[in-house]
């Protein structure tokens, strides 16, 4: 039962991931990415990581792909602009990078599976207190530095966005004044 589910989901995951790259329509690619994220969350569910599965959908499927679609629409892709070819030098370079990255990640996952150490919490703890609580405790004790660094990174992003939005509106106001002066 589990194996069947795994192979079906894995096929879906890989096919949709390839589709994201090779599809020539931007919006269809984004949709395939959505399918990919959803199948990843099924994997998390099968590994009994419900919290991760839901967060995967909440963050990636619910926010990031919507953002992609939003940008594509704002940039005015009428039914998506078709890309003429995907076989360029730059893409080949990116593919090589991706393969190196994949090897690194695969190796590290394999290493930590065979010789890594297990965490502080047993499955019984997780069942008793809930996964969100366990992850929260781990994040805010052992990995507090990483959390704070991420928080600072996000803060920088927010400040940058506010500055951009502000200066843009300022420019618009200036442009509007210049225009009204001209008409006078």
């Amino acid at each position: 039962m589990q194996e069947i589910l795994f192979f079906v989901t894995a096929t879906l995951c890989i096919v949709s991931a390839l589709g994201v790259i090779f599809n020539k329509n931007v919006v269809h690619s984004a949709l395939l990415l959505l399918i990919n994220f959803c199948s990843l969350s099924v994997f998390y569910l099968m590994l009994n990581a419900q919290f991760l599965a839901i967060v995967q959908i909440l963050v990636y499927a619910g926010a990031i792909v919507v953002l992609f679609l939003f940008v594509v629409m704002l940039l005015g892709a009428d039914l998506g602009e078709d890309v003429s070819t995907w076989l360029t030098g730059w893409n080949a370079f990116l593919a090589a990078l991706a393969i190196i990255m994949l090897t690194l990640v695969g190796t590290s996952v394999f290493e930590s599976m065979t010789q890594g150490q297990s965490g502080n919490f047993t499955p019984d703890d997780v069942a008793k207190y809930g996964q969100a609580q366990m992850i929260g405790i781990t994040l805010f004790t052992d990995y507090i530095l990483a959390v704070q660094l991420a928080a600072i990174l996000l803060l920088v992003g927010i400040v940058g966005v506010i500055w951009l939005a502000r200066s843009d509106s300022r420019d618009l106001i200036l442009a509007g004044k210049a225009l009204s002066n001209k008409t006078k």
Partner: protein
Amino acid sequence: MLIQYEFIILLIIDAVKILTIGSAIMGAFMGALMVERKLIGRFTGRYGPNRVGPFGLLQPVADGVKMFFKEEIVPGHVDKLVYLIAPALSLTAALLTFGVVPFGRESITLPFVETLLGFPVKLAPWVADINVGVLYLMAIGSLGTYGVVLGGWASNNKYSLLGGLRTSAQMLSYELPVGVAMLSVVLVTGTLRVREIVEFQTQYGGLFWLVFLQPVAFLIFFIGGLAEAGRAPFDLPETENELIGGFITEYGAMKFGLFQAAEFVHAMMLCTLITTIFLGGWNLPFLQQIFIFLPFLQLISPVIYLSIFLAKSILMYCVLIWVRASVPRMRFDQLMGFCWKLLLPIGLANLIITALVLAVLFF
């Protein structure tokens, strides 16, 4: 082998439960449509539909039959696949939310089944009781955006695209205040399980509904929920005077019907969520004490719980109609400003104050 057998039985029970709840909701959609049209009629000094059947009660059936028998037209300039998927996605996302709503308190052990199958079968009044229920609600709520955005894009029409863009911006923005309001609720109850949030409200005689403990969160959740469901006064996705019909412009027949159904199911979902999270769910004040004095009522307690839950939800739905009839639609810039400059700061302040109060209380 026995485990396999039990597993399949449980799977079948779950499937039946999902089908029952799903079709009940689609039936309730008919009722909601009727109630809405009747009440809106009364609010605006009309009778509402009153020709088809007794008191016009068969009007939704007539509408449904009309929808089904209309010609299915797919305009030539659309992106066919996405165009056809969008309404289904919209409705699916709205329906999925009901998966974690508890319609009653405890599981019933089915009588006679143990002798028949050899193991006891418990029937729970919810589909799933997952330990990240609140997050699940947020996640599925955020998926609701897709139907609208994709429908607007695939129609390949300026008005549809504008409507889709507007709606995605609106839904993305209003998810934040709703999430923050949910967070303060989670802080108070200390759990992400929807069932336990309701249990929390049955403590102390069932007097402490979260609407009293977290009135600000309730208001933000209510307003944000209205905006996420695209209900008036936030029904900007389909402003007919500016956008013809927004994302629905190019849709006809049953595809249009599906979008319409999705909107109603979304509104019903909002009502059940408010009932569950803020209005005590299936419980009434002192109901448990009444059960102690009149034990025979305990026998029909699932029915009582379900009817209380439904009564609260329907009342909430009438409030929604009331709001729709009395508040005019907002302008788009007002809408965004309201969300980002008013709701979100208030929600965040509420969250921080809640956290501080809890920290002082439990220090």
